[in-house]
């Protein structure tokens, strides 16, 4: 592949992730509204919101770290996207994903939140700082079962790359969610925390912290966060599909699979109140951890 194709492919991937992530956000708002007995906004509402935020003046900032915070987040989402295989056979959406490595991805995914946390810290709002501490604490919580699930997969199939795991699924024809069910359960439970829907929306809980880390960010900052958040959720969903649901051969299948897995945290969130921080952490160190250990035992024995 020559450089131009590479760059074009990368840009196409980013646009795809952005569009899909934003649309999913809108559809989630619609679904939530229907559960609420409402009509809800149109599915493209998030695009309008994003464009409006982009058009807003950003008259003030509290220091350069606040400007760099969203940049870190954007960098993290885009770079992570580059390393996640979007489709099974690649093509335009290959990017760097032939080099994708799971542990590498795990750490890359932390880069953005940490930068975001720094940006939120610079604003000097105590609510932001409390939100960040909550977010980081919760992250320690859900990373454990999530990593256990991944380690179980790595052990079971003796590879640490995403492409390796995808190949395993293609060859055997069985999705990993069936061939290593405990890992899947642990990963899905961890995913609840990763997507930060209720009951794990403790970071920016409006009734507690007045939206927490983003409370000082409006306009373009918020736009950047919103769009990189959308890209990030696409990345996470694609990762789940790649790891547990056999990847996707074309975009339609990808959309169906990602959407169906996205509905788990969304639907669980609609009917759940919010956890307190330590309750959330303890939740992840309860059943998810148990399933994680089961998964590792399962992988080690079989």
């Amino acid at each position, binding site marked *: 592949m020559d450089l131009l194709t590479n760059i074009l492919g990368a840009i196409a991937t980013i646009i795809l992730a952005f569009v899909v992530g934003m649309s999913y956000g809108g559809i989630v708002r619609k679904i939530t509204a229907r559960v609420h*007995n409402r009509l809800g906004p149109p599915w493209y509402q998030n695009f309008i919101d994003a464009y409006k935020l982009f058009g807003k003046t950003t008259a003030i900032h509290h220091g350069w770290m606040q400007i760099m915070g969203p940049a870190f987040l954007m960098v993290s989402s885009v770079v992570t996207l580059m390393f996640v295989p979007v489709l099974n056979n690649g093509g335009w959406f290959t990017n760097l994903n032939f080099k994708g490595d799971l542990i590498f991805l795990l750490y890359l995914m932390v880069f953005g939140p940490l930068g975001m946390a720094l940006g939120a810290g610079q604003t000097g709002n*105590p*609510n932001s700082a*409390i939100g960040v501490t*909550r977010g980081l604490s919760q992250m320690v919580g859900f990373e454990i079962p999530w990593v256990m699930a991944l380690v179980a997969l790595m052990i079971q199939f003796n590879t640490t790359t995403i492409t390796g795991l995808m190949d395993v699924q293609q060859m055997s024809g069985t999705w990993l969610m069936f061939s290593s069910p405990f890992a899947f359960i642990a990963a899905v439970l961890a995913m609840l925390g990763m997507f930060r829907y*209720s009951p794990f929306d403790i970071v920016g809980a409006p009734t507690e912290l007045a939206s927490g880390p983003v409370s000082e960010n409006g306009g373009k900052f918020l736009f950047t966060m919103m769009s990189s958040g959308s890209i990030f959720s696409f990345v996470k969903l694609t990762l789940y599909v790649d790891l547990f649901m056999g990847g996707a051969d074309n975009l339609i299948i990808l959309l169906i699979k990602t959407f169906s897995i996205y509905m788990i945290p969304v639907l669980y969130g609609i009917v759940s*109140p*919010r956890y*307190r921080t330590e309750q959330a952490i303890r939740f992840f160190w309860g059943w998810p951890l148990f399933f994680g250990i089961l998964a590792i035992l399962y992988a080690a024995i079989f």
Partner: protein
Amino acid sequence: MREKATTLYFGPQHPGITGNMMIRLKVEGDTIIKATTEVGYLHRAFEKLQEKRNWLQSFTMMCRFCVPETDPMEELYARAVEEIEGREVPERAKYIRVMVLELARLASFMLWYGGQNGSLGLYTMGQWSVGDRNYILDLFEELTGGRIYHMYIWPGGVRRDLPKGFEGRVLKTLDYLEKRLDDYDDLMFDNAIFKKRTQGVGIVDKATAVEHGVVGAVLRGCGIKSDIRIDDPYEVYDKLDFIVPTSDGADIWSRALVRRQEARQSIRIIRQVIDTMPGGSVYNKIPNPQKWKLPKGDAYVRAESVRGEVGLYVVSDGGTMPRRVHLRGAAYVHGITLLEDVLVGENIADVSAIMNSLGTCPPEIER
């Protein structure tokens, strides 16, 4: 010198605050070590204005004291004036008053369902219950012409008789709401996370309750059976059959349990009222409001609202205007000293839930 603990401003512009007030929280970690309420953001000087209005004009201010539940205030004012003047109220008017009061209670419970769960992040509940509350407000609209401010219960009875077929529509709404209340139970009380979040949080035990003069569901939530409708019965409550629920947990959860049953008791009371409502006129005509003078005297009347006991002290100096109208809301004791004391040692995450559970209503505090 800088203070050591971090200051968090909980309000006035905050999604978690009920109404417009402020709690200045001093926190270390996510534990509150000191809470200071600051009120006055809604001080409209009603009591001053009422001294400048005649007896009927004053009445229009009453409903604006506390917006979630406006009818108890109107009823209180009407009853106080009647007590000073010695005016008789027709029997049918009393029944209609009770019906309106209980409907208002029910509407307020709906709002509480939304607020309590919204503060804990379960927004679906709020969407459902506030949406269903509209059906009660529709009834009010038909009866009085207004959704929020009714100005229906006035001295000497009620403003007009029930429209034709109104009872049937009330019963139909009640049937619907009863069904919905079961749905709410499924969503709220069967929810493990809701239980985890509310049990053992915001404790008001018996000793604290007596020390602070706690009233209403908060008092019943700590195991003391107390209800103005039973203890100091007014209108026709002594002729009705209903239960005063209590619970022993003294936390948010047990208060929620109490309110859950109270909402059902309200439905029961309305049904009884409709069954036993006598006929007859609904008001005794009052004189020309401009010249309407009350004899010298004073009256203190109390009623049970969703938040608890509401009292109204009215003084007449024999003129066309009240000498003094002084409202004592339940939130007046719950929202300031009790809240400050209860919040100490609690988690930041629970401030909003505790406020909702104590029934803090700033407009009632500040008047």
